[in-house]
């Protein structure tokens, strides 16, 4: 755990260096596209003190000065499968963004959706040394959380203190200065496969970039797509991506749960490809132009040329009706949403006071999804688009860029995580006592 702490601290230091340079880039490694945005920081902003427990990581205003996306290669289910291919794709995106920004970027903050993210709720409590809570007490209580056994080959991505309680007063955002006897904390821990993280690190390193932070895309798309009161009152963000669908639940402006379903828009494309016997590229085109999930009578008469390149006249002049296409797409979309529903139920989402669900991500743009989703997920479903950030090109404001925009916000205004607090100095007294004993032994 200490190792992780140091690693994350190093990334925070890198982020500080990038903030001083004023330029940082964010990299969204997705299954269908890789997006790179270059941000320029305009110095410390008048950030809100009420967020989290103060501003440990430092905040800043920013604007997007470079943006580029490229088709992703070598990524499946949000995990890197072919390192060389992914490295090339990252290089393409980074170079194009650099070219647009006309500035060289050295620091990058990345997000990915794969790696089987798993959430853990941690609790810790300590007796206060004095009568008021100090920063040192906060660090001690964070360190006192008993780490669950999340297994080998897993690494912690996020460890955010969600709630502080002093004695029996709970729901404190910032406990510093409170009077009491006992401080307890609830922490949300998100882990992912370390192999997936290592692959991503390796690819970024191969592109001569320094990693200044890493985030889970479920978290960052929730940050960008949920409006403030949804984050405060409780809501779930479903990021329907290409290879995987990420779920994050927010409450009191903190993520309290994240998960991912390894199904996405690419599976819909595969179904079309198999069902209509067309190549994947054609299937993707047909999906984006004519796709839908709710069939009407009109759709029976709307014929779609599906084309072909075999030289066989009959084969190359095939037509399907839009109703047939919808008949292929709908079961898969329903399957994805049902899987999401299962995960939400497993997380106990139906016990939350607010049942708001926000759909975002590229696959949320399927026409008719806003009619289908309430049937499976409940009545309070809306389609979300990411927040508008300054300087972002119009082409990158769609729902598919929810994770990219969220990562911008994460880069500029990160929530305080466990490693933003100092290591508690608890081990020091024992060690110094040992040293004193050793000194006595050595000299007498």
């Amino acid at each position: 755990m200490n190792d992780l702490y140091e690693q994350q601290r190093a990334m925070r230091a890198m982020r500080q260096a990038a903030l001083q340079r004023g330029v940082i880039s964010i990299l969204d490694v997705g299954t269908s596209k890789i997006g790179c945005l270059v941000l320029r920081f305009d110095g410390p902003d008048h950030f809100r003190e009420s967020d989290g427990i103060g501003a440990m990581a430092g905040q800043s205003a920013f604007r997007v000065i470079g943006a580029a996306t490229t088709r992703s290669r070598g990524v499946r289910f949000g995990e890197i499968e072919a390192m060389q291919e992914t490295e090339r794709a990252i290089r393409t995106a980074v170079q194009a963004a650099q070219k647009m920004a006309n500035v060289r970027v050295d620091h990058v903050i990345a997000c990915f959706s794969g790696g089987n993210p798993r959430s853990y709720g941690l609790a810790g409590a300590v007796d206060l040394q004095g009568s008021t809570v100090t920063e040192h007490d906060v660090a001690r209580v964070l360190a006192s959380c008993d780490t669950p056994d999340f297994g080998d080959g897993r690494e912690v991505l996020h460890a955010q203190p969600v709630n502080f309680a002093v004695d029996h007063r709970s729901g404190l955002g910032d406990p510093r200065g409170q009077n009491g006897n006992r401080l307890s904390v609830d922490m949300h821990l998100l882990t992912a496969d370390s192999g997936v993280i290592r692959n991503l690190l390796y690819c970024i390193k191969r592109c001569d970039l320094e990693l200044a932070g890493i985030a889970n895309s479920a978290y960052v798309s929730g940050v960008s797509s949920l409006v403030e009161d949804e984050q405060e009152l409780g809501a779930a963000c479903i990021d329907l991506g290409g290879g995987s669908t990420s779920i994050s639940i927010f409450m009191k402006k903190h993520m309290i749960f994240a998960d991912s379903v390894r199904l996405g828009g690419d599976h819909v494309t595969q179904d079309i490809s198999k069902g209509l016997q067309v190549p994947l590229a054609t299937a993707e085109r047909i999906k984006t132009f004519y796709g839908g999930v709710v069939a009407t009578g009109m759709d029976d008469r709307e014929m779609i040329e599906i084309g072909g390149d075999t030289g066989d006249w009959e084969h190359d002049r095939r037509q399907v009706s839009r109703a047939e296409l919808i008949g292929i797409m709908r079961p898969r979309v329903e399957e994805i949403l049902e899987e999401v529903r299962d995960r939400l139920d497993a997380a106990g989402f139906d016990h939350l006071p607010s049942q708001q669900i926000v759909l975002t991500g590229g696959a949320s743009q399927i026409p008719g999804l806003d009619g289908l989703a309430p049937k499976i997920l409940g009545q309070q479903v809306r389609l979300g688009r990411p927040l508008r950030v300054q300087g972002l090109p119009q082409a990158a404001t769609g729902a598919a860029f929810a994770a990219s925009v969220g990562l911008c916000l994460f880069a500029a205004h990160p929530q305080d995580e466990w490693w933003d607090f100092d290591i508690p100095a608890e081990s020091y007294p024992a060690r110094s006592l040992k040293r004193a004993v050793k000194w006595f032994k050595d000299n007498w």
Partner: protein
Amino acid sequence: MQPLSALRPADMPRRDPAPSRAAYKMHRLLLTPVFRALFRVGLPALILATMAGWFMSNPDNREALKGALTDARRTIEERPEFTVKLMAIEGASPAVDQAIREMLPVNFPVSSFDLDLEVMQSEVASLDVVKRADVRIRPGGVLEIHLVERAPAVIWRSETGLELLDETGHRVASLTARSGRSDLALLAGQGAQDAVPEAMALLAAGSPILDHLRGLVRVGERRWDLVLERGQRILLPEENPVGALEQVIALDQAQDLLMRDIITVDMRNPMRPTLRIAPPAVSELRRIRGLERGGL
């Protein structure tokens, strides 16, 4: 029918849109501020410097460049705005005017760039008669020399001849005959020319006896003798000669001292003025004293 020779799109090697590792690194390198400055400023400057150096390394080019520069300079210098057509000398007597015109051999018209005014000024100022000289080029192409001449104050008789000196003792001109400037006092003796201010003070103080004055003689390069008519001399001390002279003049005005038959008034020790009486007067004095004593 499909042509057999044509490559179908699927057969053609698809171009990889990703930049190669080298291209990516090069692009990043060119985006670093140092390199951008180098390529925007450093490289063009280097190319220009190299071209200039190559051009100048050829002696023919260098000569041609120098010639072109000289020509350009010449055409500007020879414009009528810079031509000096005549010389005007102000404040000089005709003889000095002539001398200066002979001394400065300028062939008019000439460009003002070719005139070295400082040298001309020092040349003109080196004349003894010139106290101050200003040389300038007046608009309209006139070389103007403004002079202040030295006024002769005394005549100095040296071993070589008579010379006119101004009140500071600076030489003004030579004089062929004393009668040429009979209005000026005559100085003589070794070192007289170095003590002209003192002599001028004595002359000013001795204005009542100026009619009788023949000249001033410097004795031993330290003090003055006033030589009057009839060979009379007034020997003045080194210190405060003017006071001594005023004492003598006061005596003269009270008792007609100098009208008497006296050869020398010796004031070298102002506490003890001494008179030397001429020999006939001495014998006369003795006779009178004998009469007084003997009662004859």
